[in-house]
Each structure stands twice: as C-alpha cells, then as structure tokens.
C-alpha cells in the first residue's frame, strides 16, 4: 500500500467508483442483465411449466448440470468466507483491500446456490417443506437426510455472510451518506443506522465483526463438507468416498480464490483507480494460496482414484473405467488435470503472479477446471451404478446449458449493480492500511 495516499483521496477514489458512471457500464449491465434473464429465467419458467422432462436427466442419472452448478457456486462462495473470517481473525493485513469484493462474491454466489436448489427440484413451489416448521399436519423434516443438512448449512451460511458483509459496511455507508444526495442519501442514512463514528461505536463494530468472523470460521470447512455428504452418504460407486469432505473443501477454496483473482483483475481494468489499492503485493499473497490449494487438490484427486482402485469391487472398477475412458466426457479429465494441477504451478514464478497470464489466464483455467471436476463426479458416477441393465449416458439439453450460462451472466449483472450502490473496497479498512497520518515518516 502506498502510504502517501491521503484519507481524502481514498474516500474520493472509492466513492468515485459508485458515483461516476460511464455509458460503457450501462451498455454492459444491460447486456448482462438481458442475457441473465433470457438465458436463466425464461428457460427456467419453461421448465417449471413443462416439467423436468425438458432436461437431459433420465432414469439412472437424476442429478445433472443443476447439481454441478449448485456445488460450483457453493465453492465460489468459499474464498469470501475464508478471506473475511479466517484472515480477519489472524489480522492478516493484505485482506483489507480485497475482503469486501470477496464477501460480495460470496453473497451473490450463495444467491445462485439457492436458485439452483430450486431449479433442480421437481416441485420447487413446495421448497418450504424442507424447513422444520410447526404445522397442523405434524410432519417434521428428516434429520438423517443430507439434504436437510444442506438446508441448515446453506441457510446458516447465507444469513451469517449477509450479516457479516453488512456489519463491515456500516462505517462506509455512513461516510457515503455525507457526500451523496437524492435517493442515495436517504438509503445510506437509513442503512447506517445512526452511525456517528464515536469511539464506542467503533469498538462495538469491531467486536461484532470479530464475533461473526469467529462464527463463520467453522463454516468455511463445514458447509462444503456437508455439501459433499449429499454424495458421500450414498452407496453409489463414484459417490461413496470418505475423502469427499476435504476434497470438496479444497476444491471450493481453490475455485473461490481463482474467482477472487479474476474479479479483482477485471475490476482493476474497469476502474484503474483500484490499482492504487489492489497491488502486485495482493496478487503475490493470494496466488500463494492458489498454488498450495492446487497441490492439495492434486493429491486428493489422485487419492480419489486410488481409493477406488484399492476398493477393487467390480462396481468401483467399472466406474473408474467409465469416468476415465468410456464416458463421452472422459477427455475432460485431462483438461481438468491440466487446468487445476498444472496451470496454477505457473504461479511459482514470481514474475507471472501479477502478469496478464497470472491475473486472467490462470484463474479462468482454474474456474473452468473446477467446474469440470464437479461435472465429472456428479453425472458420470450415476451412469454406472449397480445393475448393468440400467446403465445409461447423460447428455444435457439446451435448457440445462442455457441456465448454466445464464447463471454467470446473472451473477455479473448483480455484481455490477452492487458496486454502484455500495463501496467495493472497504474505505475505512483501506485507511487503516494507509496508517495514521501523524505517524507518517517525514
């Protein structure tokens, strides 16, 4: 962080992202918004009307692209939690400039997670039956079902992420309410809840953030473990693996960090002023995480295959054969290994970390690779279950592909709206980074 930046400059730079909007922003937002609606919501409406028959799902393969996307977006959400919670508690200085962006990503990714749960359901209008609520019918939910674990895990995760994001934003919202006019001023005034910046308020705010950071920290590990149990608690050959919980958590963090890197890089290009706050130093730190996580992921991928081989049941062998050789998607395995295990190793070279390749190419590869990992696990395992008579291949239809693509457009458009309403870089935390002016060296 450049210590010569003044407080005034920081406030103006970051609130400038909110208030100064060019025509390009509106053009991209319109494009993304329209694509999001037409690729995601229109096909979904068609699917609700016509039934799940419009997807490529069939008798053995009941979980397809929707479940893949569900796991994928939970994974994307994870880096935000790690950065905001774990690094908050350990007082890691470089988290300050990137934490808000990562938390925002968490929030919108979790929004999509919830959406995909509804999309994949046969009767989504009955979703509330999965909550334990008192009713005259005296029916409760089944607490042995991993789907119920999911409802609680993701519900807790979403709620605490929103609260944490909002608590961290209160001082910024209050400072924005002084500099803006019109609807923004009334919105910020309302959302700042009477923040005046007194010592006591700062003290309470820090305390609340610390509490929620400690509250969220176990969720970093638990949420994706619970998601992995949707699969690991079954008896299906490719699913029933004890290694799934750490495997999924590592993969989630890997994809999440790649997502954060890509998001930061795009933001820096769109708003060059951010380059002052998110520097090569930040890339240096985050990419170290990516390399380490990629290595752990590679080890666990190897272990997943080896565990199947070691079990040496005919079902496991058949599943591995299908996944690695026979399946119409088996060539994707090599691409997955290349993008998740080989590409991140380029970060070992320090020069590449903040170069164009390091900022854009490698994160995109990792994001694609992690999507493929989930894709290779979910439908491929169901294609070869126990009775050979029911073996069948999976091929997604345009509805599934369109909803998958639409989710990305919708995510981008929501993110773009967010950055125009709330500061994407925490102003007060950046000021902490700059340091107290009086203590500056002369």
């Amino acid at each position: 962080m450049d210590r010569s930046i003044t407080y005034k400059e920081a406030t103006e730079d970051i609130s400038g992202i909110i208030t100064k909007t060019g025509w390009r922003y509106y053009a991209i937002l319109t494009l993304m918004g329209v694509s999001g609606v037409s690729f995601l919501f229109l096909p979904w409406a068609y699917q609700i009307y016509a039934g799940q028959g419009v997807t490529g799902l069939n008798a053995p393969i009941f979980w397809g692209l929707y479940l893949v996307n569900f796991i994928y977006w939970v994974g994307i959400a994870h880096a935000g939690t790690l950065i905001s919670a774990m690094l908050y508690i350990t007082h890691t200085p470089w988290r300050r400039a990137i934490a808000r962006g990562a938390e925002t990503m968490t929030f919108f990714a979790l929004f999509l997670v919830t959406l995909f749960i509804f999309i994949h359901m046969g009767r989504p209008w009955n979703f509330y039956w999965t909550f334990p609520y008192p009713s005259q019918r005296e029916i409760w939910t089944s607490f042995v079902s991993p789907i119920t674990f999911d409802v609680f895990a993701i519900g807790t995760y979403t709620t605490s992420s929103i609260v944490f994001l909002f608590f961290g934003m209160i001082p910024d919202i209050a400072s924005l309410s002084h500099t803006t006019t019109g609807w923004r001023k009334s919105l910020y005034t309302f959302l700042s809840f009477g923040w005046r910046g007194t010592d006591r308020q700062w003290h309470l705010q820090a305390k609340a953030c610390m509490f929620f950071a400690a509250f969220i920290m176990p969720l970093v590990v638990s949420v994706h473990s619970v998601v992995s149990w949707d699969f690991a608690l079954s008896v299906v050959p490719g699913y029933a693996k004890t290694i799934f919980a750490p495997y999924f958590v590592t993969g989630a963090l890997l994809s999440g960090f790649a997502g954060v890197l890509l998001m930061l890089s795009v933001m820096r290009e769109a708003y060059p002023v951010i380059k002052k706050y998110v520097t090569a130093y930040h890339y240096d730190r985050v990419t170290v995480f990516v390399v380490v996580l990629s290595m752990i992921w590679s080890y666990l991928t190897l272990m997943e295959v080896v565990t199947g081989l070691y079990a040496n049941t005919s079902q496991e062998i058949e599943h591995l054969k299908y996944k690695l050789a026979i399946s119409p998607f088996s060539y994707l395995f090599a691409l997955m290994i290349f993008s998740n295990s080989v590409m991140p190793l380029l970060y070992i070279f320090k020069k590449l970390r903040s170069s164009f390749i390091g900022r854009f190419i490698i994160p995109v590869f990792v994001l694609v690779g992690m999507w493929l990992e989930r894709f290779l696990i979910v439908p491929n395992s169901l294609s070869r279950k126990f009775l050979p008579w029911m073996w069948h291949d999976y091929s997604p239809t345009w509805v599934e592909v369109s909803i998958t693509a639409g989710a990305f457009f919708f995510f981008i458009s929501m993110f773009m709206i967010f950055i125009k309403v709330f500061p994407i870089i925490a102003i007060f935390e950046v000021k902490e980074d700059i340091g107290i002016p009086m203590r500056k060296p002369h």
Partner: protein
Amino acid sequence: MAGLLARIAERWNIHREPGFFKKLDHKWTMVIDLDKCNGCGACVTSCYAENNLPVVGKEECGVSRAFSWLRIERYVEGEYPDVKVKFIPVMCQHCSKAPCETGCPVYATYHNQDGLNVQVYNRCVGTFTCATYCTYDVRRFNWRTYKFEQPLDQQLNPDVSVREMGIMEKCTFCIQRIRAAKDKAKDEGKTVEDGDIQTACVQTCPTGAMTFGDLQDADSKVAKLAKSPRRYKLLEELNTDPSVIYLKRVMKEGPSKHG
C-alpha cells in the same frame, strides 16, 4: 402422582425393550422363482394396468425414461451360436435398510409398520435424492404431466392416484390391495391370512413364478420358499436387506452363476 410415574415407567420400559422399534406388524415379502420365470412380461403389463402407469412413448423410452415400476432385465452371455439369455424381474426391493429413506429430507419415503418402503406422493418435493441413492434404479420420476387421453382415462384404477408432474414414485407392492385385504379382515374380526393378498404381478404370472406373503408368518408359502437353498437377494453385499427373495435358476450345468 404415583400412578402417573408408574405409567411413564411402563411406557419407558416398553420402548427400552430390545428391537421395539424394529418390530413390524407384517413383513411383506415376494419370492421370485427364476426357474419358473420365462420372461413373458405379463407382470409388467399388469403393473401398468393396476397402478395407472403412463405409457410414455418411443422417444422417452429411448432416453431411458420408460415408466415401468417392474422391469425384466435381460442379460446375454456368450458369442452368437452359443448364446444364453437370462432374465430377471426387478422391482422395488423394499429394503429393510433402504438407502433412499435416509436421503429424503421431507419423509416422503419411509418404512411403515408392514415392513414396506412407502412413497407419499403428496409429500414429495422432487429432490431426486432417493432415486440417486437407490441401488436398484427402480424409482421413476414424473418428468412431465402424463395425460390419459379419452378413452384411456376410463380404465384408470380408482384405488390408485394419478400422479402429478415433478414427483417420484416406485413399486408399492400394490399397497391398495394390502389395505383392502386388511380392512376386510378387520371388518370380519380376523387377521389377514396367507393368500388373501396378491399383488398384480403375482396374480398375473402365468407360470406362478412369483409368490407374495408375510415372512413373519412361519406357515406362509413365502416363509417356506425363503428357506430354499436356491435363495439369494439382489446385490446382497450392499447390506440393504431387500424384501424380495430370488430363487436361483438351475441350469444344465448346475445352478446359474448370475441368477
């Protein structure tokens, strides 16, 4: 007060009795003698007629969405001149330790007091978990609203509901017939006897390969057949403890290896 405590203690002790929660009123079981089965498919047809199963057509069957609750699996062994075709009827095995039951978040599928694995259509929200966990792939999903056009709606069985789009279903062991027989027996002040209940497939089977009855009743036909040395259960090694018992086919060269 002492009376209340005694009542509580009594209730408590009943529940403490080992195996209380596993005690069933009946244990409905089906025995399928593969030696008698000739693979005619009459059971499949009767199942369609009895349980209001929709006929989905060529395209849907082509993408593996055929709706039969009961299917006859065919396996071919050997090369052309020396070919052996084997078949086995597979329906919901009504596992005592069913993987599907642990998957459902809303108790749409659970084990009832008759030892049946039942599906509550109205409670299903369609998470697909049960079907994914099922080791026998016997669950069927209503991918679309399947319509029974005129005059097909006249042949629908009034005892069985027509299911709506978006829910999971499977073989029920013709629970409507079990209910009817139990109600009749109750009205007459008797208990259900062996042979009172026949599922549609059992009733239809021309060779009498299928038998249905209560395994807890030691004198029942199924209980006797279940003691056969040819008995086996499908995918027994997965420890799902199915309620369908198969009797191995005896070939020229001895008992078949694959049923």
